[in-house]
């Protein structure tokens, strides 16, 4: 797998590159800002870009802007955002603008090598990945009105897994149910959220978006 890394902080960048190289991922370029990242992607056409949100010059949302551009202009390159911010808004924006093949991990997840590699593999496969910690934080929220109230316990559980970007097979394995049951649950979720007309992959993203929107 060929990957470029965009991160302006030296220590963090070296850490990410180290983790990836250890796992035999080929790091074909390192960037310290969004424009370098864009030219690297244009020349190297990597399978994925690991991108920090805050980069020079403004240190605000350069990474998110770059992610949307990469997904739009180079569909062959997936984007894994590695961010310090636990901001559902950023996640929602990434999914909104980047579509599929994008992921959002918290930076301390870098310490969990397996999670990084797994997320990278999944975004390259065209899935959406959201850091489990963010998902659980959203779920733990005390709500007064919840559009997801219509979902059963199991359906909500399944949706949570979908939101994390797992495939049906992986969800089935995790919840110890058959893949067929997962499909039924997901269909129920789609129906209850009013997502009946869209195509399946699109609907998975839509469900996640609905989930996140409801949570935000």
């Amino acid at each position, binding site marked *: 797998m060929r990957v470029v890394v965009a991160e302006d*902080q030296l*220590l*963090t960048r*070296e*850490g990410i590159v*180290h*983790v990836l190289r250890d796992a035999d991922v080929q790091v074909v370029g390192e960037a310290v800002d969004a424009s370098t990242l864009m030219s690297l992607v244009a020349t190297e056409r990597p399978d994925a870009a690991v991108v920090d*949100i*805050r980069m020079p010059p403004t*240190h*605000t*949302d350069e990474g*998110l802007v770059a992610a949307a551009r990469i997904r739009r202009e180079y569909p062959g390159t997936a984007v894994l955002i590695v961010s*310090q*911010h*636990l*901001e*559902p*808004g*950023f996640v*929602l*924006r990434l999914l909104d603008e980047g579509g599929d093949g994008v992921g959002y991990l*918290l*930076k*301390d997840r*870098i*310490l969990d*090598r397996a999670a990084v590699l797994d997320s990278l593999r999944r975004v390259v496969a065209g899935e959406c990945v959201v850091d489990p910690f963010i998902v659980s*934080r*959203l779920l733990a*929220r*005390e*709500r*007064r*009105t919840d559009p997801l109230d219509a979902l059963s316990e199991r359906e909500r559980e399944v949706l949570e897994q979908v939101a994390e970007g797992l495939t049906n097979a992986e969800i089935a394995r995790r919840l110890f149910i058959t893949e067929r049951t997962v499909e039924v649950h997901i269909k129920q979720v789609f129906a209850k959220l009013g997502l009946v007309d869209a195509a399946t992959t699109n609907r998975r993203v839509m469900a996640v978006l609905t989930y996140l929107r409801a*949570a*935000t």
Partner: protein
Amino acid sequence: MDVLALAVAAALLVVGVAAAVVRHWSASAACIGVGGVLPLMAYADGFDAPVLLATLTLLAAPLAAPFVGWGCTPADPALRIALGAGALAGPVRTLLYDPFYDPSCTSSCDPNPLALAHISASANEALWLLGYVSAAALTWAALRGPSRAARAALATVAAGLTAAPAQAVALTTAAGIVALALTGLLVARAFESRARVADLARALENAADVETALRTAVGDPGITVTYPRERRARRTPPQASGPAPGQVTTVLTGPDGVVAEVHHDPGMSDTSALAAAVTGPARLALENGRLAARVRRQTEALAASRRRIVDDSDDARRHLERDLHDGAQQHVLALGLALRTALDGTEAPEVVDTVHRSLSATQAVLGELRELSHGFYPASLEQMGLRHALDGVVDRATAPVAVEALPDRRLPIEVERAIYLLVARLAATASRPLTVRVSTGDARVAVVVVGAALPSGVLIDVFAVLGGSLRPDDDAGNGPVVRGVLPTSLLAHSEAS
């Protein structure tokens, strides 16, 4: 008698000229100077003076009395009465004084065809005596500086002497007529002046500022008023207005020092109107204006200082967040990665155990740093607006927080930051469920947090700095409410960064 008259005249003339030289030309100096002429006239009239001097003084006498009154102060009622009596005394004496009955005037006197009756010689002498007593009083008063008494004395002298020239009856009559005419003019001016003061009093009640009222009352459209600042107030910028080129400044003082400076046209003939205007009701208004100006300056300085404090704390929060992100977080992350590498290189159970515990501690530190930096300054606020930033607040709140209404459009970042700070602060300490409603309308945005108690003073400052307000309220049975209002357009306040 003649020596005494000459001495008084000379003394008054010297004092008058000296006063005029030292204090420049002023009404008071004029009073004293003219006062010196009057005893001289008594000398010229009553004794065998040179013909030229006698003629000149006779011509000057009727003019002197009104001039003294006008030059000193037409507003002084005592002076006006004395002046009027003196001006009348001349013609009256002309009607009552018959030289044929005057023992001191046997052959040299002209007949007085206008005499209807005659007064006794002793009454005539009494008039003379009155004149000299008044002259003495005038000298004494003039030496102590011009005062109400001095002016009254001047007027009495003028009155007595206007009545004196009896030898030339025709001249006396003419003098009396001229004196009457001038007195009439004076009285008319006095009435006009009084009317202006009344106008000023009315204008002050209606006009927003004392400047406009003064312009109307005094008839000088260029008048400006400035209020002196306290000597220690150095930081405030220089005053915008002052005397325009060609204007002169009249400084008005009160018991506590300078009250105001009135800049007006030097050619303004009626400085007495200005004096009258500013001594009466305008004085109060000016004093009021000075105090208002001081309060305004202090308020502006306070507001600026409060703004600086709020801006500084805002900057400080942002810098802390940046420092945490760029500094501590990446070092702790690097530490975690090093621990992870160490874990790969060892099999020893006790080392593995220790490193594992260190790793989870590292992860906890990272999580805490993340929460800390979010608390300082939410990254999503500037880029994504209030809705997303408040999501973070809801996630971290100690009690359920429901954001029920938010405007669809973005608000100025300062406004969003203020609202965010308010909700974050209230949510962090909430002991019961909160409901947040933010609504816009009429160039204002209203924030209502139901269930929250009194916010901290800093938050009140943050709202006030932006031109809004923040106050606790009670929502008819729903418990405490915090209500905030902010303007949606911040004209005066634009952040540099």
